């Protein structure tokens, strides 16, 4: 069945999607570069603010708060979308429909309803738990994820803090989340949580290494750790039609991309590498004892990391926001959500790996190959003098 006969409702859905795409594309083109527009708004507001009797310090702090709120807003909305998307994609891969009634059109408001439910739920701290560690853990998991978004380039000029060491910063800070997970595992006073936390620590620490090593070839070519520099380096075309994205570099690019993608999936603790949660072995791993908003913080952090990894993949391998016609931020979001879809696809296709095989895979396979990749890239850089 290559061309299935479409029912009326499917035709309607496709029509609605096409219309939404057209309207969205039109609006995006009308808005243009978001970074430029935000700068324009800032330049429009600045003289008004300067006339008001407000100390400069206060206006600067207000500016930072606004930037943070924009990021928080983006994270929550995109996480809500991703949760809904995951449920729909998983449902359709299993020939189900997923949420269909909430909000009218294909259950689009399901995550909002779930969020309200999570807020209303009772917040339980188990008797055997270490109260402070238990309370602090979700915060420590989410905060690094949020900090990392500061250096993610969402498009040209659309970056909260353009750090010189952007890539290193993201790897360093996102590594901190492991601490939160171990604290959650230990502070819950539950054997399953403890095991989950320890597994998560072992896994995250192991997969961090090939993840960082896999992008060393990029750094060799670009000669900078700045994410905007890396994105700019990939602009332009080869032979007029192949984009100069790093994924299209013969052999080196593909090996690096695959290793980076696999370790990103492992870093975000998602199936097939979700031994930290492993609901069939460990109930839910480190977040077994969490309920209500604390649980939703873990959930938020997981999906925030998924988007962060996708955004990082886009910036490093897929040329950031470069693309024709549409503004850069739209291209960045499209590519990132494409990678997010890949994450969902992996999750609903592959079975969970065993703990020892998981460790063997990273130490005996991914790491040697990333070293080989660095070797090849170094030779190429030396030979061609790029």
């Amino acid at each position: 069945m290559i061309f299935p006969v479409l029912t009326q409702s499917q035709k309607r859905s496709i029509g609605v999607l096409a219309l939404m795409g057209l309207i969205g594309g039109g609006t995006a083109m009308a808005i243009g570069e978001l970074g430029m527009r935000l700068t324009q708004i800032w330049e429009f507001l600045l003289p008004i603010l300067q006339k008001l009797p407000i100390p400069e310090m206060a206006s600067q702090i207000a500016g930072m708060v606004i930037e943070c709120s924009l990021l928080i807003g983006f994270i929550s909305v995109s996480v809500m979308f991703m949760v809904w998307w995951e449920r729909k994609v998983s449902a359709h891969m299993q020939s189900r429909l997923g949420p269909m009634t909430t909000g009218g059109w294909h259950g689009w408001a399901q995550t909002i309803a779930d969020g309200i439910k999570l807020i209303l739920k009772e917040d339980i701290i188990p008797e055997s738990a270490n109260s402070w560690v238990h309370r602090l853990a979700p915060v420590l998991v989410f905060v690094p994820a949020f900090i990392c978004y500061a250096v993610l380039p969402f498009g040209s000029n659309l970056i909260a803090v353009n750090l010189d060491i952007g890539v290193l910063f993201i790897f360093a800070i996102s590594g901190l989340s492991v601490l939160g997970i171990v604290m959650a595992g230990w502070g819950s006073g539950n054997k399953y949580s403890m095991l989950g936390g320890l597994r998560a620590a072992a896994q995250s620490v192991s997969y961090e290494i090939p993840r960082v090593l896999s992008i060393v070839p990029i750094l060799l070519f670009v000669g900078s750790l700045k994410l905007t520099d890396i994105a700019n380096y990939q602009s332009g075309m080869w032979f007029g039609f192949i984009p100069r994205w790093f994924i299209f570099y013969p052999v080196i690019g593909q090996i690096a991309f695959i290793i980076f993608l696999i370790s990103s999936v492992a870093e975000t603790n998602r199936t097939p590498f979700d031994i930290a949660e492993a609901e069939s072995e460990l109930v839910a791993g480190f977040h077994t004892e969490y309920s209500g908003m604390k649980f939703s913080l873990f959930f938020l952090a997981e999906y925030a990391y998924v988007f962060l990894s996708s955004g990082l993949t886009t910036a490093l391998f897929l040329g950031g926001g470069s693309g024709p016609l549409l503004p850069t931020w739209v291209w960045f979001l499209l590519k990132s959500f494409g990678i997010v879809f890949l994450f969902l696809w992996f999750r609903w296709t592959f079975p969970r790996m065993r703990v020892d095989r998981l460790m063997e895979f990273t130490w005996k396979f991914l790491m040697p190959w990333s070293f080989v990749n660095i070797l090849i890239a170094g030779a190429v850089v030396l030979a061609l003098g790029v």
Partner: protein
Amino acid sequence: MINYFKTIYQVSKALLQGMAVTGRWLFQPAITVQYPDEKLTPPERFRGTLVFDKETCTACNLCVKACPTACISLEPYVDPATQKRIAKVNWYQIDFGKCNYCRLCEEACPTKPIKSVRHSHDYEWSMKERSEMFVKWKRDPSPVIADTPKDTGTKAA
């Protein structure tokens, strides 16, 4: 050395095959039916709730004998004027708490062309109490009904 690369090739091939399967299913229409909004038509021989036609029934007792769970009970109609049994039912009762929807009563029923006890295609049927499961059909323009105690059938079954 060759085995190493062979394993890598085979594993990647298997992973891609798995992804192709889920990818194919993603674009196929779902099997799920949104039940209260859309309903499937049951197949022709679907055994839904039993319906009874008290006008055609001859009170032959074949269904009562055929029923494996003894959920059917009936009383033939006796004409008060002649004190003779005629081929009509006075009342006919099915205990749906016992009925296992096996169609044996319908197969035993001799009335033609339409069986007087038969399965319908209706499956949306629920009761809140056990007493509601006794469904009783009574011969209507009949003076006998008034004399019959109302819950006779209920206790008999």
